[in-house]
């Protein structure tokens, strides 16, 4: 089957996110109130060809851990959007 998967790769909690902090600090001066906790990371969309949904998940996890993210400073989450037989 061919599944569209989307991953979000964010810096781990407690690790400085310079982009997030700088954007957050400047939002009020741009006229946007009541916004906090800004964190910015990567969104990756891929199509994965694999025998089963479990296979798709396994391949995505391995790819995320070994290549798409750096486990030392980043965490990742993923969603398998649709699976066509």
């Amino acid at each position: 089957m061919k599944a569209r998967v989307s991953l979000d790769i964010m810096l781990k909690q407690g690790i400085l996110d310079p982009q997030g902090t700088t954007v957050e600090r400047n939002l009020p001066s741009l006229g946007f109130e009541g916004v906090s906790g800004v964190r910015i990371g990567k969104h990756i969309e891929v199509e994965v060809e694999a025998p089963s949904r479990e296979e798709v998940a396994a391949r995505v996890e391995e790819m995320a851990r070994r290549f798409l993210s750096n486990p030392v400073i980043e965490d990742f989450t993923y969603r398998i959007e649709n699976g066509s037989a």
Partner: protein
Amino acid sequence: MTASLDLAESLGLTADEHERIVATLGREPTKAEIAMYAAMWSEHCSYKSSKIYLKTLPTEGPRVVMGPGENAGVVDIGDGLVAVFKIESHNHPSLVEPVQGAATGVGGIVRDIVSTGARPIAILDPLRFGALDEWRNRWLLGGVVAGISQYGNSIGIPTVGGEVQFDPCYRGNPLVNVLCLGIGRADRVIRARAERVGAVALLFGNKTGRDGIGGVSVLASRPFDSEAEAKRPSVQVGDPFAEKIAIEACLELAERGLLIGLQDLGGAGLCCATSETASRAALGMEVDLDQVPLREDDMEPFEILTSESQERMLAIVAPEDVAEAVAVCARWGVTAVAVGKVTEGDLVVNRRGEVVARAPARSLADEGPTYHRPARRPEWLDELRARDPLALPAPDDLGAALLDLLASPNICSKRWVFEQYDSLVQHGTLAGPGGDAAVLRVPGTGRALALSTDGNARYCLLDPRLGAAHAVAEAARNVACSGARPVSVTNCLNFGNPEDPGVMWQFAEAVAGMGEACRALATPVTGGNVSFYNQTEGENIHPTPVIGMLGVIEDASRALGIAWGAGRAVALLGETRAELGGSEWAWATHGFAGGAPPSLDLEAESRLVDLLASLAERELIESAHDCSQGGLGVTLAECAIASGIGAILDPATD
């Protein structure tokens, strides 16, 4: 065994060091005190294994304004100006996360220069990696260069030189050394001293988080929610924008004369900056951790004190100037908070109304242990030295051999690397990357400064003393080839595990050789850095002392490059001998590393350097190029490539 001894030992303090702490304090140390001593008495901060050798180096000279022991070396360059420069290493963080490890290496050395009140005008990056046929080393190279590019370009300091070398010994431990040069006013050099009782300690820059707490984190009394977080290595994410606004704020504070003292928060963070600035003025400091802006609210005192969050500075300001100083910082978008006051007594740290640490600043900053580690020449060296490079088969086709050498990783063009660096900002770059030395105009004067970083680890493997002397001599020749007179040296000493007697022997020999060469060439050492424990799965790297040499060109219009003009005569200065020991040809062609490094006549080197500078000053030569790695053939080829003009050479004529 008292609880505090267990904790102390788990942080690398020995039993007798713990005993000395108990004697100094007259009681058991608190958890925060143990963390502070462990950080301040670490190899990185106290130089405990290298101190006895480093103090043999020549550090005095007519131009030296500030030598080792301050934030950076300061040298007089005339016109009421000083050059401030230093080199540091960020090897271990770069192995774990290459982009951020290298980026924060740039950030740290730049803050050392800025803390003397000087504006940074140049960065050089000597880098060393394992062999390129392994994917991991290509990943490390790409990451480190990207980190230096992103950070250095963003803070507006041109990266104008350095080097990239490859050797299997660096496979698990890349070397990321970064040199920064700044220009300041001679009458306004800022020292890292908390000079006046009652002065206020102002912390400014980024918030403090749990970055880089590494080993000390074992002290944490809260449970770690994940195994990864428990052993999170000392990785910090760099924020070049926070660095840029902190630099501009610092320079404006200095210009307005608001600073009594200034120090970067680097290794051992706030604990180091407070204890060192107080100790240098033989005073104390009252610190209130409640004032420190935190990124995470549940931080313990020991974490706040030893955090190595980036882009933070500690300024010592007179009470009446604090309001203006805070306003200057705010104008640049930098938060500045008073966290302490200079006192007569000890360094006293308060947290939520309670004294969590009290110790003499001097004992933390200046009374670290001094080790006399055993040093012994390793036996494997004799076999290596016994190999005869002259027995290697000579190439039958010299042309092909030269082309192979020019294509080898250590000699080939590094344009792929330095085109990722902004080498133009600040409109002062007379000679950028790719030549013998970087040459930079001194703003507002007719002068220029030349800078070169050099180090040949293979020579040092074969003979650490001679190899280190070669590094100084080659750096001097490089700046002389640009028309400059060598003035002073900074050094980054990258070595293996000091607990291995062979490594300590290499270190002792290298420092001795460096000292000899610096004396012979009259280039005193104004500071530097020692990085031990560089090894891959227990295998030590080759001894790699890297020398940063500063030269002065009185008339910038007389600066030289390596490109020659058409129709010019080509002269070789100095003697050529049949010496192939540790040569790049033997390594690149036959994978051979053996024999003895080439001989070195320091007196002749000194005369050669003077001759080159005088020829340039009298405009008797138009270009010059140092003959080093790869030999004469490579040197001539590089001149031709740089100018696009060939040459007909007949070595037979004398």
